[in-house]
């Protein structure tokens, strides 16, 4: 499978800012997930679906984790200038994030990376996410639904409690289908059958995915079947998020040319 950079021309977008954002909320949601809300009008204004921020999990310079943590913008309240981040507690950095309380300030850099770029005439979207990867897709689903596009969202997870995004989809009026390992419904072959059945008569004109290599392979197959554009958001360990540290090149090595930087050329890539 090849991941290709999006079209060379970068659509106009706001430059990233670095702010000490007041924490508006930081609450446990379910399973290992927490929801963080930051007062970040500078980011909220311009952020586009699939873009991310770097969050600094320590309040004092010279203390705490040495690197910031990349997190997708889950939702945005442009009127209030707030952004929502849904995060899973994995290791030390995300554990530190849980310590922030309303009123504290969190250093955040963003918006970063290239957003999803559906073809300009796309109106039928299929969105396929698994686990925490869903966080990179929610804003896309919402914004497209608000434009009146036909959006179907597949949410996959280890078990019912670990599926995120269902409430969000409900709230923004997007049809979402929950699939989990527990009852076997997230099995890739059954998803394939499901999608072929639903979409073969009238295929989607854009597929977006994040969070699972196997679902990515499925989306590629379906994209070929339907000859429609497929884009994926990928993860990489990051330091700068801006393209200068070269820490996030995720591809093969050995060639003279470096593989694309996930933070600057991605995190969203075309799948072919």
């Amino acid at each position, binding site marked *: 499978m090849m991941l290709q950079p999006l079209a060379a021309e970068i659509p106009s977008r706001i*430059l*990233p*800012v*670095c702010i000490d954002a007041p924490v508006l909320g930081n609450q446990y949601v379910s399973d290992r997930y927490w929801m963080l809300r930051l007062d970040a009008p500078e980011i909220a204004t311009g952020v586009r679906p699939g873009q991310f921020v*770097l969050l*600094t999990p*320590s309040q004092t*310079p*010279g*203390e*705490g*984790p*040495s*690197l*910031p943590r990349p997190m997708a913008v889950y939702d945005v309240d442009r009127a209030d200038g707030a952004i929502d981040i849904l995060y899973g507690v994995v290791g*030390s*950095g995300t554990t530190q994030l849980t310590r922030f309380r309303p009123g504290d300030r969190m*250093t955040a*850099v963003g918006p970063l990376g290239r957003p999803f770029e559906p073809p300009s005439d796309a109106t039928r979207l299929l969105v396929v996410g698994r686990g925490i990867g869903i966080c990179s897709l929610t804003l896309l689903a919402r914004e497209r639904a608000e434009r009146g596009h036909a959006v179907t969202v597949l949410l996959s997870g280890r078990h019912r409690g670990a599926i995120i995004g269902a409430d969000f989809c409900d709230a923004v009026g997007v049809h979402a289908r929950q699939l989990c390992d527990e009852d076997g419904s997230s099995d890739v072959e059954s998803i394939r059958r499901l999608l072929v059945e639903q979409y073969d008569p009238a295929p989607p004109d854009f597929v977006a995915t994040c969070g699972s290599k196997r679902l990515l392979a499925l989306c590629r197959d379906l994209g070929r079947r339907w000859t429609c554009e497929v884009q994926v958001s990928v993860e*990489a*360990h*990051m*330091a*700068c998020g*801006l*393209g*200068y*540290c*070269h*820490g*996030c*090149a*995720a*591809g*093969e*090595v*050995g*060639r*003279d*040319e*470096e*593989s694309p930087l996930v933070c*600057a050329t991605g995190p969203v890539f075309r799948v072919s």
Partner: protein
Amino acid sequence: MRATSSEVVDVDLSVELGPLRLSNPIMPASGCFGPELASLLPLERLGALVTKTVFTAARSGNAAHRLTDSGSGSALNSVGIPSPGAASFRSQVLPRYSAHGTPVIVSIGGLAVDDYFSIADELSMAQFAAYEVNVSCPNLERGGISIGADPDQVYRVTRGVVDRAAGRPVIVKLTPNVASVDETACAAEEAGAAALTVANTFVGLAVDLRRRRPVLGNGTGGLSGHGIKPLVLRLVWEASRAVDIPIVGCGGIATTGDVAEFLVAGATAVQIGTATFSRPTTMAQMLDELPTQLTDLGCRRVADLVGSLQA
């Protein structure tokens, strides 16, 4: 505690690294900075800009993961110095550094002694203020670490670059992965270095327990970040007593207090690396706070603080 602005107005932040005069002692560390920061940080205020290490030929760098947070305030990286090569560096990259009116220090590297001479030859006609010779990158498949750990090789590389520098000052960036930094420091000084950067990263390892593999694609990596500060402070102190040329302190500096500690320990200027990742505005904040910090410590010039540690 906080001095009023009238009290601090007279503080002189300028420093000299041999013939190189800088408006202040704050600059980025190689590889932890790029012109991409221009929208977040006023680059024209910095003492200097330091480029990522350049090689003669294009290089792709190491396999992923290339970096990880290794806990306790440290990061490990094995980026491996991907490089566009000298030609493309001159035409594409260097102009973006030069656009800010701040002295540009070009970091050069190589996998063998001769590589340093080629890159210096290739850059001799370009416009920039000084060289930083990176003899200390621990991430290369060969060469890097051994050149920097061997005083003879440090001498040869430094000498060769000085000869090809067309009068530009040559700063040599030492490796900390030695039993004593005195010997390599002295070798670089004898070979004509104008200043020394102390130091590059320490070799470290992070283990992925489930996979029974190193977290980094390259195996080991270079440890940076505020966790290494006590180690580097000691090296700066030692090196500053071993040589007569100025020292640029680099390693774990995250706050204005850290800057002051490095100056006291013997550094004339400092480089900020990993701290910029979590707080891209770090260097600007240091520039804001440094006059007050100096005033609080009873100093009117950076030079008053440099090397003031009493043993």
